[in-house]
């Protein structure tokens, strides 16, 4: 990093604590941003901070070898010179153990891709019982030698190198596995190790002298210490960053600037220069329950009616959300902008009424019962009723909202939904959200409940292609789904807007999860 200086303490302010620190359980945005400081994975993303992403080997030399070119057998060669915080070498054995322990049913919360692919069933923890087979490895996972890790799947999984970039592939020696208590003391393989952890208050990370920068393609070791400090509200975070006093000068507000303070920050050039502003891959849509709203014309009318400009104002403006007219977010590899139902920023109520043929169509819109979503409910009701719909806004407890939306027989017609893919490929978005063959009674990601044979066949066709050739195909498929089914109204992508102190450097919004990355962070001395 040009201009980076060593030393000092770098503070990260956040409202709530990180739900899990155990790499096998990390899945929240904060966890995903914190984990690279102390853990290394099989593969990782090299991000230039301007949107250019390259998948590289992390513990592995390369992002995996597709042995038979059928995506069923994958091999990873492990680098030399890798060590844990106590100086022990990291070999394929500890990486394999890390993957094996993610089968432990006690360790909830983490991603499940690799477990499900290895076991070839969603019931992976009954297919292979971790607690009963502690000395062995799950089916399909082998370590032919200390430097090789081999995956053999029953089906093709071309996305394995991407899935391996999640913290769940971090290594752990079996003698350091304390079950759920790893959350309080993860064993470091990255440039920092956790030296103090007070739940709900702070996590202190100090340099891990066993980490060798020569083996690491992305991480650095600039500050002496990183401190995650919890319990500060987003408002207070922004105000502290604005004040820029003492230790806050080398700090960053992890939560985005609250909507109420945005105009203040944008109106002050000095403050604006201390901020990160970037759209994220979190795509928000108004999902249409195609089981209930069966008329394509009605779904198209919704797409014409939507007033994205007004919705974004209700959210807090352009520094909170950026309009989206496609199912895929712009950060997807091979993204192409399109607008199948062009209606201008404020929507076209007349065109919508025309499609509805003069009828008043009643719809139930479900929203969470928090302040923001109730506001959005009001906004959408007023917006859509101008276009000939009759909207009942059904507020529902925030903690059960997602469970309900994900249940096949939910009672609602339209609802707000969002999706942040775990890697920037159309494969991690479109088949997950719109392939109808996997619809279950509950826990669905396909919340439109659309099941279209032609589209399903397209998914199969594209997924079988070489990963590099898939990208443009996903963009075409996105357009096709919108034209032929219109299972949702794309609304906006979240925008990250973070303030930092005058002595904080090296920060950027990374492009996979759209949050502040700390791999280059330093405290100016």
């Amino acid at each position: 990093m040009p201009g980076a200086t060593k030393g000092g303490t770098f503070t990260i302010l956040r409202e709530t604590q990180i739900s899990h620190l155990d790499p096998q359980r990390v899945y929240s945005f904060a966890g995903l941003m914190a984990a690279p400081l102390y853990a290394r994975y099989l593969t990782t993303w090299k991000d230039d901070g301007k949107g250019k992403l390259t998948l590289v080997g992390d513990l592995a030399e390369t992002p995996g070898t597709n042995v038979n070119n059928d995506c069923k057998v994958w091999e990873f060669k492990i680098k030399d010179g890798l060590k844990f915080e106590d100086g022990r070498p990291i070999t394929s054995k500890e990486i394999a153990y890390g993957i094996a322990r993610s089968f432990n049913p006690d360790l909830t919360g983490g991603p499940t891709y690799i477990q499900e692919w290895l076991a070839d069933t969603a019931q992976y923890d009954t297919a292979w019982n971790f607690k009963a087979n502690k000395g062995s490895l799950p089916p399909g996972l082998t370590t032919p030698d200390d430097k090789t890790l081999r995956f053999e799947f029953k089906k093709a999984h071309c996305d394995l190198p991407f899935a391996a970039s999640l913290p769940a592939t971090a290594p752990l020696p079996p003698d350091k596995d304390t079950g759920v208590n790893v959350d309080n003391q993860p064993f470091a393989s990255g440039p920092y190790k956790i030296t103090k952890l007070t739940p709900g208050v702070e996590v202190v990370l100090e340099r891990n002298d066993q980490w060798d920068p020569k083996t690491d393609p992305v991480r650095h070791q600039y500050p002496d210490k990183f401190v995650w400090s919890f319990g500060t509200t987003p408002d207070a975070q922004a105000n502290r960053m604005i004040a820029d006093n003492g230790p806050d000068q080398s700090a960053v507000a992890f939560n985005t600037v609250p909507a109420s303070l945005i105009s203040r920050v944008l109106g002050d050039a000095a403050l604006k220069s201390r901020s990160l502003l970037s759209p994220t891959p979190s795509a928000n849509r108004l999902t249409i329950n195609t089981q209930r709203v069966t008329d394509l014309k009605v779904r198209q009318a919704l797409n014409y009616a939507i007033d994205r400009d007004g919705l974004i104002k209700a959210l807090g403006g352009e520094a909170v959300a950026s309009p989206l007219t496609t199912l895929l977010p712009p950060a997807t590899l091979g993204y192409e902008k399109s607008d199948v139902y062009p209606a201008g920023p404020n929507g076209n109520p007349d065109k919508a009424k025309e499609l509805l043929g003069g009828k008043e169509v009643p719809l139930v819109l479900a929203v969470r019962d928090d302040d923001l979503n109730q506001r959005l409910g009001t906004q959408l009701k007023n917006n859509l009723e101008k276009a000939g719909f009759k909207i009942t806004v059904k507020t529902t407890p925030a903690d059960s909202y997602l469970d309900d939306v994900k249940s096949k027989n939910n009672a609602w017609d339209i609802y707000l939904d969002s999706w942040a893919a775990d890697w920037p490929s159309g494969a991690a978005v479109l088949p997950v959200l719109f392939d109808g063959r996997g619809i279950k009674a509950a826990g669905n990601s396909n919340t439109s409940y659309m099941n279209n044979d032609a589209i399903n066949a397209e998914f199969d066709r594209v997924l079988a292609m070489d990963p590099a050739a898939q990208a443009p195909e996903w963009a075409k498929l996105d357009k096709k789904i919108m034209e032929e089914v219109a299972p949702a109204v794309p609304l906006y992508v979240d925008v990250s807007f973070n303030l930092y102190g005058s002595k904080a450097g090296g920060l950027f919004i990374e492009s996979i999860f759209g949050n502040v990355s700390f791999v280059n962070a330093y405290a100016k001395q």
Partner: protein
Amino acid sequence: MVRFLIKRILTAVLTLTAVSIVAFLMFFALPADPVTGMCPKNCNTERLERVRDELGLNDPKPEQYVNYMKGIFVGRDLGSAQGGQCDAPCLGYSYVNSEAVSDTFARVLPVTLSIVIPAAVIWLVLGVGLGMVSALRKGTVLDRLSVGFSLTGASLQLYFVGAVLQLVFVYTLHILPTPGYTSIFDDPLKWASGLVLAWWSLAFLFSAIYTRLSRAQMLETLSEDFVRTARAKGLAKGKVYGRHALRAAITPMVTIAGLDLGSALGGTVITETTFGIRGLGRTAVDAVRLGDLPTIMATVLISAFFIVLANIVVDLLYAAIDPRVRLG
């Protein structure tokens, strides 16, 4: 005295038991399922069901209740998914915070105590002081000012006062640091500077009651015979007011102070939310939002415990201050 205490404690135990049963019935009937919150993206029902089984959430409600209470008194084994053996007083394991609930409370209780106790001292001294002054200077500008001040306090909202104070002292004048909690044992100065705004806003709102009350009591006491007698006997003004009048005036206030303190301890939710400090109150609110049942139960029980305790202490203090009160 001893008999009274035993009787009082027995009722208290009965009250707390009733609170625990009501809370258990209410919260474990919530629609939120603690288990679904544990896997954010791709969960399947069969797996959830197994986790639910392991956590004992499928057991009959009475059995769950008995297990819970057993945990508090003798401890219990929560299973490997919940950190294994949990020693008494075991309040369960929080699925949300992934730690034992008793650990959470060991952390947040000192925070809430640090807010409420100093604030109570300020509001008592301020309230009673203003009340006495205005009683002794009845009808003067001073009297009107302090009555007006107390009524203004009573009519304001804590979150409003707190927000204005923060804007002025923290973000505009930069006199105080952002409100927050530091342990008094680590750095007393930082402890005080981080909480002082919370103390004063609470005190401003609560003291109103004491001002009005002590003023009225004081006026009444001053007109009573024993005060006039004492004055006539030639006792110095200060001594009369200090020894006789104040003593009589303070008695009813103890009742209210005890209740206020108990309820403030049980629910500093709004103070904590306003100042972004994470104590008992915020923990409770978050627990309800996230369906974190063991934490909710524990919050209800702990705040009920404080309120009941405060009631007993008040009764005892009452007897100590006012010899006319007989316990029994």
